[in-house]
C-alpha cells in the first residue's frame, strides 16, 4: 500500500484541482497562478539537475525555455490557427487535443538539441567559463529570434489560443491546467528516476570530482551530454506550456532576468534537492503574487529575504536533502521504488 499512496494522492490531487477549476471554485486568477507555479517547478527542478546535482553553473536556462516556447507555438499555430506563413490551418480544431502534446514534445526536443550548444563546450570547460558560455547561449537564442521576421521578431508571436480553444471545443474542461499539472509531475518523476538510477549517479560524481569520476568508469562527456540535454529539453517543455498559457510569446520574456529568476529558485530550495526545488518554486511564485500590492517595495522585500536566507541557511531551504530525509516519519506514509 505504501508504494502507491504517493501516486494515488498525486493523481487524486490533480483530479480535485481540475474539478475545482471546472466548477469555478478556484477562479481564473488562481488557476493562472497555479499554472505558473507548475511552469516554475519544471524550470527549477530541471536547472537543479545541472546547477545542483552536476555542480556546474548554468545561467542561460531562459534561452532553452525560449526555444521550446517558440517551436511548440509555431507548430500549433501552423496546425490550428490562421497564420501569415501558410494561411489556413492545416488540421481541424478537433485534433488539437492529440497534436498539442506532440507540439510540446517537439519544443522540448528542439530545446534539447539547442542544449548541445552548452553541452559540447562543457567537455573541455567548467566553472566560470562554462557559465559565460551558457550566458552567451541565452543571448544567441534571443538575438536569433529578434532577427527572424517570419515569427514576428521583437514584436513577438501569437495565435496559440486557437489550439487551447480547440481542445476546449472538444471537451470543456480547463485543459491547460491539466497539461501543466501533467507536465510538472512528468518532469519531477523523470528527474527523480534519472538521478537515482545507476546511470544518473554519474551526475553527482562529476560534481564531486571529475577526474575521480572518470577513473571510476563514469563516461563524463556522455553524462554531461545527457544532463545538459535533459535539463534544456525540460526547460523547453516549460516554455511550450508557458507560451500556451499566455497565448503570446516575446523573445524578451526569456532574457537573462528569467534565467536569474530560475537560478534564485534553485539556490533558494537547495542544490541537489528535488523537493527543495519544487518547494522553492511554489514559494517564490506565491511570494511574487502575495507581495504584488507592495509594488516597488516587493523588490526590496524579496532580495532581503534571500540575503537573510543565505546568511542563516546558506545551503538553501532543503540543503541537498529530500523531504523524507528531513522528516523520516513521512516514510511511514509513502515510499518510492
Amino acid at each position: 500500500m505504501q508504494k502507491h499512496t504517493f501516486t494515488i494522492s498525486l493523481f487524486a490531487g490533480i483530479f480535485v484541482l481540475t474539478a475545482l477549476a471546472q466548477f469555478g471554485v478556484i477562479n481564473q486568477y488562481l488557476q493562472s497562478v497555479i499554472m505558473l507555479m507548475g511552469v516554475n517547478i519544471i524550470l527549477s527542478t530541471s536547472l537543479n539537475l545541472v546547477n545542483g546535482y552536476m555542480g556546474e553553473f548554468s545561467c542561460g536556462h531562459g534561452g532553452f525555455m525560449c526555444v521550446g516556447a517558440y517551436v511548440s507555438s509555431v507548430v500549433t499555430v501552423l496546425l490550428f490557427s490562421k497564420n501569415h506563413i501558410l494561411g489556413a490551418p492545416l488540421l481541424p480544431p478537433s485534433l488539437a487535443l492529440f497534436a498539442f502534446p506532440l507540439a510540446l514534445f517537439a519544443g522540448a526536443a528542439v530545446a534539447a538539441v539547442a542544449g548541445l550548444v552548452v553541452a559540447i563546450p562543457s567537455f573541455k570547460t567548467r566553472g566560470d567559463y562554462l557559465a559565460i558560455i551558457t550566458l552567451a547561449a541565452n543571448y544567441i537564442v534571443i538575438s536569433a529570434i529578434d532577427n527572424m521576421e517570419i515569427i514576428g521578431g521583437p514584436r513577438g508571436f501569437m495565435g496559440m489560443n486557437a489550439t487551447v480553444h480547440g481542445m476546449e471545443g472538444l471537451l470543456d474542461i480547463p485543459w491547460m491546467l491539466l497539461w501543466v499539472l501533467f507536465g510538472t509531475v512528468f518532469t519531477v518523476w523523470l528527474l527523480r528516476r534519472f538521478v537515482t538510477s545507476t546511470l544518473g549517479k554519474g551526475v553527482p560524481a562529476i560534481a564531486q570530482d571529475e577526474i575521480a569520476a572518470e577513473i571510476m568508469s563514469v563516461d563524463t562527456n556522455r553524462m554531461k551530454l545527457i544532463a545538459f540535454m535533459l535539463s534544456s529539453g525540460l526547460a523547453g517543455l516549460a516554455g511550450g506550456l508557458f507560451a500556451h498559457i499566455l497565448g503570446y510569446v516575446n523573445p524578451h520574456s526569456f532574457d537573462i532576468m528569467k534565467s536569474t529568476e530560475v537560478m534564485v529558485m534553485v539556490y533558494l530550495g537547495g542544490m541537489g534537492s528535488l523537493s527543495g526545488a519544487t518547494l522553492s518554486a511554489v514559494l517564490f511564485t506565491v511570494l511574487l503574487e502575495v507581495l504584488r500590492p507592495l509594488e516597488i517595495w516587493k523588490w526590496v522585500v524579496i532580495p532581503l529575504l534571500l540575503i537573510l536566507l543565505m546568511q542563516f541557511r546558506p545551503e538553501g531551504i532543503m540543503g541537498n536533502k529530500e523531504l523524507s530525509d528531513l522528516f523520516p516519519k513521512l516514510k511511514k506514509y509513502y515510499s518510492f521504488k
Partner: protein
Amino acid sequence: MKAMTIKVLVAVLALALGAFALMGCGTDSNVIKIGFNLELTGDIPKVGEASKFAAEMLKEDINSKGGLDVGGKKYKLEFVYQDNEAKADSAVNAALKLITQDNVVAIIGPNSSKQAIPAGGACNDNQTPMVSPWSTNPDTTKDRPWVFRAAFLDPFQGPVAANFAAKQFGAKTAAVLFDIANDYSKGLAEIFKVEWEKKSGAGTVVAFESHGTKDQDFSAQLTKIVAAKPDFIFVPDNYNQVALIIKQAHDLGYKGPFMGSDAWGSAELMTLCGKDCIGQFFSTHYAAAGAQGATKEFIDRYTTKYKYVPDDVAALTWDATRLVLQAVQEAGKVEKDIKAERKIVRDALANIKEFAGITGTMKFHGTGDPDKCAVVVQISPEGKFEFKESVCPQ
C-alpha cells in the same frame, strides 16, 4: 517536537492560502471599480508612475464632487492598481486578478505592447473591457472586441514623420538608425522607409542601420550614416538612446537635423541630452508647451502636484480613463451583476464615435483603434517641447 512544527507549518500554510483566496472579496454597490494594470516596477517604472499619478488626479477630481453621475445617481470611484513588473506573464496575472479577485468593471493598461498584447487576450477571453493608453502595436486590439486603445498606431506615425521632414527640411534623402530588438522602434523604422521611398523614389533612404537595446556606442553605425550624407536622420528610439545618438553624431561632424518619434517625449530627454537636442523635431501625442484649454489645465495641475511636466503617457492615461468613465455614464445605469455591467460598458465604449481628449479628438470607426491627430514638436532653447504642427489622418 517535530510533529508539532509540522502541524504549525500546515496551519500557517492553510491560513495563508485561505487569506489568498479571499483577498478582494466583498463589494459595495455605490462604488464603481476600475482596474489599472501598470508597469510600476521593472524596466519602465516612470511610465507606470505617470499613469498612476494621472489616474489619482482624475479620481480625486470626481470623488471630490461626490462621485460619478450615472443615470442620476452618484457613484464613488475606486481605482485598483496592480503592478505588472513590465513582464508579459505578470501582466496576464495582474489582469486576471483584477477581473476575478478585484471584480473591476474595466481595466486601463498595460501601456507597453509587450504587456498589452497578452493582457488584452486575457481581458477579451474573460469579457472585460480594456483600454491601453500607450500601446501602438496593431495586435493589441486586432480581432478583440473588448480591447480598445487611446494612442495612434505606428502605421500612422511613420508617414507623419516622413511628410513633415520632407516639407520642413526640404529633404531628398534620409538615413534611419533604430533599435532592432525593440518592436516599436523596428516597426516604425520599416514603415518610415517604405513611406519615404514611395515619396522620393527607391534608394533615397541612403543608410538603414540598426543597434541593440543596451548599446552605448553608435559610432560604427553613425560613421556609415554620416558618410552617406543624408539630408536628415530619422531616429525612432527611446529617449535615453536618442541622447547618446545625437551627441555621438555631432562628435562625428554631422550638422544636419534629426527627426524623432513619440518615444523621445520624456521629461528626462533634456537632462540627458542637453544642448545637442535643441532645435530637433519629433512627432508625438501632444505638446506640453503652448497647450491650450483643458490640456493646459491638466498640465498645470499635474506639474503643481507632482513637480514635473506630464509626458504623453500621463495625458493618454487621463484620456483612456475618461473614455471608460464616459462609457460607464453613457450606459445609463449600473448593473448589480458585474458581468452584465462589463457588457453594457463595452457596448457603450464601442458606441462612442468621437471623444474629445486632452491629446486631441479621437474618432472610432467600429474598431478599438482611434483616428487622431499627431503633433510635431520642436525642442526649444529652454528645453521645452514646442508645438510646431498638427498632422491629421486624411
